[in-house]
């Protein structure tokens, strides 16, 4: 509840700051934001696209949030997405399976690839105490270059030099019933996977002994060790789960929203995941809504640009400012506390008087 309020206030402050920027360049913020919303939600197709945009963010947000909750900072979601996407693409391009089985194998391949990519930082952290921030950054670049050479080397499209061969429509997460329901938008089965992931992760964190252990290790590995938990195994496990989430995010992005994997790009969703996790207060359900908000911002911005003179870069600026406010949520909490204190001061105005009478 508290976190929700803080997140909401950050969003509002970010939007206000963005509005000021719009005024600054001579545009009307109200008009701007209304076009932004229309762009994201005006019709079914747009809603579908917004949800599709949000889907990979749910995964990366969960990935970062889960790691956070267990005391780890996974900056490597981008790389994990890449290898996850690559694995799924490779499966789709290599095996000739019936659609349900193929999709299942693709998702599993992405999951395993992402997990393995995160396994290395996890292992280094557990065994050698290498800080995961650095190792995951390194793993991002290693993924970047691996994709850069493997895709053209083994999965090259006929005339495409910077991306893999396109997947057949039936080999992607796109489902005709969804596409039709949302008027030809890009929404795909990834969204369902995302919802399932949210539920599973929330469940693991709050309700299971596994979550209990992982969090304990995250907070105090010495106490966890003392209590008989396998600290190293838990750190690695935590990274594996976090990486698996990002890996499936890659599957959703490259075989759902897109139908090929591109080289030369570290997917921005990996870094956005940090912001999403933060805004969602590291809670799975919060992450989901934060991802949808980001989906709205990212997907509505084009229409806003088209209808007004507000440049595209502004949407990114607004998102960044929202995150800054979320990061400084302590300030917001303090303000809330002050507000509350003032209120309660007013309420028990009579308090000190009674005390005086008492003594």
């Amino acid at each position, binding site marked *: 509840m508290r976190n929700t309020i803080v997140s909401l206030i950050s969003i509002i402050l970010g939007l206000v700051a963005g509005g000021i920027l719009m005024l600054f360049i001579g545009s009307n913020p109200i008009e701007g934001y209304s076009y932004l919303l229309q762009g994201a939600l005006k019709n079914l197709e747009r809603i579908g696209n917004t949800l599709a945009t949000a889907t990979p963010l749910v995964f990366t947000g969960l990935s970062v949030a889960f790691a956070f909750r267990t005391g780890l900072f996974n900056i490597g979601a981008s790389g994990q997405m890449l290898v996850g996407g690559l694995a799924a693409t490779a499966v789709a391009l290599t095996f000739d399976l019936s659609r349900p089985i193929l999709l299942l194998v693709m998702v599993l391949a992405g999951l395993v690839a992402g997990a393995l990519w995160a396994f290395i930082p996890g292992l280094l952290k557990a065994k050698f105490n290498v800080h995961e921030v650095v190792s995951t950054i390194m793993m991002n670049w290693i993924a970047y270059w691996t994709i850069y050479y493997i895709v053209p080397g083994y999965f090259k499209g006929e005339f495409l030099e910077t991306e893999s061969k396109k997947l057949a429509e039936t080999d992607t997460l796109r489902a005709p019933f969804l596409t039709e329901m949302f008027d030809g938008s890009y929404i795909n089965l990834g969204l369902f996977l995302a919802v399932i992931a949210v539920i599973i992760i929330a469940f693991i964190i709050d*309700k*299971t*002994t*596994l*979550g*209990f*252990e992982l*969090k*304990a290790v995250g*907070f*105090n590995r*010495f*106490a*966890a*060790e*003392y*209590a*008989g*938990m*396998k600290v190293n195994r838990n750190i690695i496990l935590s990274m594996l789960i976090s990486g698996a989430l990002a890996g499936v995010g890659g599957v959703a992005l490259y075989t759902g929203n897109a139908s090929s994997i591109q080289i030369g790009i570290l997917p921005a969703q990996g870094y956005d995941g940090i912001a999403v996790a933060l805004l969602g207060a590291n809670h799975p359900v919060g992450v989901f809504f934060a991802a949808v908000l980001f989906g709205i911002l990212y997907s509505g911005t084009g229409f806003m640009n088209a209808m007004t003179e507000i440049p595209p870069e502004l949407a990114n600026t607004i998102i960044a400012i929202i995150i800054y406010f979320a990061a400084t949520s302590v300030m917001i909490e303090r303000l809330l506390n002050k507000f509350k204190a003032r209120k309660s001061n007013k309420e028990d105005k009579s308090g000190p008087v009674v005390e005086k009478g008492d003594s």
Partner: protein
Amino acid sequence: MSYVVEMLNIRKEFPGIVANDNVTLTLKKGEIHALLGENGAGKSTLMGVLFGMYQPERGLIKVDGKEVKITNPNVANRLGIGMVHQHFKLVENFTVTENIILGSEPLKGMVLDIDKAAKRIEELSKHYGLNVDPHAKIEDISVGMQQRVEILKMLYREAEVLILDEPTAVLTPAEIDELMKIMRNLIKEGKSIIIITHKLKEIKAVADRCTVIRRGKGIGTVNVAEASEASLAEMMVGRHVSFKVDKKESTPGEVVLKIDSLSVKNNRKVLGLKDFSLEVREGEIVGIAGVEGNGQTELVEAITGLRKAESGSVLIYGEEIIDLPIRQRNEKGISHIPEDRHKRGLVLDYTLQSNMVLQIYNKKPFSKNGLLNVPAMKSYAQNILTNFDVRSGEGTASIARTLSGGNQQKAIIGRELELDPKLLIAVQPTRGLDVGSIEYIHKRIIEHRDKGNAVLLISLELDEVLQLSDRIAIVNNGELVGEVNAAETDENEVGLMMAGVGKERSI
């Protein structure tokens, strides 16, 4: 009558609690003034106010008769007030000199004048008999020496009023004697001292007067010479406290723990425990006496599984456990009250409820098929908190970090005893606790013994070891010096053995 410091009617509130309520403390020039109170009574807070770390809501502070506003520690320093905190404030990888000059560094041009400072420290150290090497790194010196560095820090700043917050909690008996001597030296040089301690013996030994606070309220100030330990204790907790540990004769049964030729490496990768053998039986408390750093940590960690042993064996009821993981050892009935409650004992950011099931969250009824049963955890925790009188703001939902150290300790002990272990390893179980709590915890440990369990007690406080134990094993330099029957020995004998003077006696 000239007072160097007068704290009059101090009131300090924290959210939801009045830590100091109308407390008055006056310090005469050249006296040692003890400040006594239960855990959480508000002693540290009161001294924090004097040292400028907290601003009181009400009340007056006078230094040398003049009213002052101590807005931060710098102001306190300038007024000649210095404080040694309960937890040392020393930068581990700095040298002694660097730590002492930090904040008031002598310069030669732009450069730090380390040599000059070191010389001055050397002089001060000699003058007060502190015996500190100015060039040693803090991480390399003993806790006792670290404390003397803290004292030097105040002297270097020419403090006239010295506040020592529980200085003896972490010291060995010898170091405590040393400290008492140093304090008397300081008084001779005209300094005045306020000392917080839970040990009444120490108050009797050095203090001139003693101010007692209970639950934030000042109870009064007495001349120590006119008070007895018992009367001080009663003032402090508001009821009679028994110092004598009442216990029946022990009736040792089967061997629970058998340690055979155990050797363990320490953090510096050399053998910290050498060829150590010991048995602990059902229904007895075996105490380990020894100066800190003589293999106790290595011993405990090797038994509990936190550290790998080099050679030798550890048997529980005749079964080898030396290669078992920690959890399996726990399941064999070992439980452990750790030395460092913040590092090992608690997940400070977890609620008490979670902390109370830290080892057994995965057992029935707290979990089933990998799912947590929160209500079961809660009622289990509530039971411990009630039994052991753990005071906290929000009961089982309190975050462990928010508890005072004493209450944290009680919670840990409650948790471990609730497991009803065959072997309880209690390391410094009462460190930093007030006498009331100590009495209670001692009682519970003896009860545990009387139920036919084995207890291995490791304590740096000789008194505690002597009172609680049935048998005492003395360690020195990682080796077993000898074993004595608690009933047949005294402080002197054990003290000698701790210093390495061997003595063979069969029991």
